[in-house]
């Protein structure tokens, strides 16, 4: 049981590091639990996810954490979402995240939506939701919808509506989103065409 608690705090410490907090302290966690600091959105989501489906008293706490997150930070994240360490929400207002799979260091900015493409699909199945690699940034107001893959290091621009796969290191902007290759790779490709 204690190993699980230890694992939980190791995960949360990684999240705090992504927000620029080197060491995790007890007052910091308590403030986050009460919704009083910038870290509270991610912390409440981690608590909710850890206690979800754990039987009666703990499940009630999980629901409380989710409601508390909606009240203080106005952000809703599915407790079934599997998000790796280093998850960062700099401004949690209006963020809605479904049952996604994500790697390390996912950053989601305000008003972004990561959800189903169609309301009729099952909302507890990973296969209906986008999957993310490591170090992905989702810009303000973006919508990432449906069964797509966003690979390592991809960046989703502000207000983009992404319904296609985004390869590693690429940029997706516009509505509907188009994919832009990374700048560092573009000259090398041009050179190879010339040669």
């Amino acid at each position, binding site marked *: 049981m204690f190993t699980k608690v230890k694992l939980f705090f190791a995960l949360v410490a990684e999240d705090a590091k992504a927000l620029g907090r080197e060491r995790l302290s007890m007052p910091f966690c308590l403030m986050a639990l009460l919704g009083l600091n910038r870290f509270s959105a991610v912390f409440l989501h981690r608590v909710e996810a850890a206690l979800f489906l754990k039987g009666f008293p703990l499940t009630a706490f999980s629901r409380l954490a989710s409601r508390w997150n909606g009240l203080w930070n106005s952000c809703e994240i599915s407790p079934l979402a599997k998000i790796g360490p280093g998850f960062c929400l700099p401004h949690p207002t*209006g963020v809605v995240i479904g049952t996604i799979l994500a790697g390390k260091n996912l*950053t989601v*900015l305000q*008003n972004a939506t990561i959800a189903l493409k169609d309301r009729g699909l099952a909302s507890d199945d990973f296969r209906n939701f986008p999957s993310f690699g490591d170090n992905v940034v989702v810009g303000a*107001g973006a919508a990432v919808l449906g069964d797509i893959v966003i690979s390592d290091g991809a960046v989703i621009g*502000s*207000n983009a509506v992404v319904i296609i796969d985004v390869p590693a290191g690429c940029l997706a902007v516009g509505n509907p989103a188009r994919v832009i290759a990374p700048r560092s790779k573009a000259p090398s490709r041009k050179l190879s065409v010339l040669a």
Partner: protein
Amino acid sequence: MSQVFSPFKQFFELVAGDAKACDRRPSMVLYMKALLGPSRFSSVFLFRVDSALHDKGLPWSLLAKLARRWNRLWNNFEISEGARIGPGMYLPHPFGVVIGRISAGSNLIILQNATFGLKDIRFDYQDSSHYPRLGDNVTVGAGAAVLGNIAIGDGAVIGANAVVITDVPAGCRAVGNPARVIPPRTSLLCTSDAELAFEPSAAIDLRGAD
């Protein structure tokens, strides 16, 4: 003595300008209501308190921090204390607005879910040179994102859900994702509307000249 009170005077002049932009009569009762939250004026007032007190030493900086949290709780409005914004700022619906360290002139109007921020998340948050600069009388539509080190001229209008990453000249509109700039209507029809209405040939001549 006047030197002690001049910051207060400046602060209340600034806040009175904001109250007028919000169609409220500036009064102590309004400020008290705004401080506690239940007023449409509270988002702007709490930001003014935050930016006035955040660098004033310990008891005041704590109060500034409280104002910032209070703003996030009641209005869902996050603004950097380093933003320099002129009088007459008005947020009809402050929900979801996030503003970085921008500089702006007077009579700025911002609608819900708009974002002013960095173009690249790897930049330094503390450096205001990566943030947009706005002129006077700018209106920003719902859900718009104004990103990076760009200049928005006086009287510009940013459309709803536009993503602006280029400069917008004075009086122009910027719409779409990515935003394109539309020049003001009056410059297309150089002559007055009355003249065009009575002499249709004048309009045709103008278009031909273009």
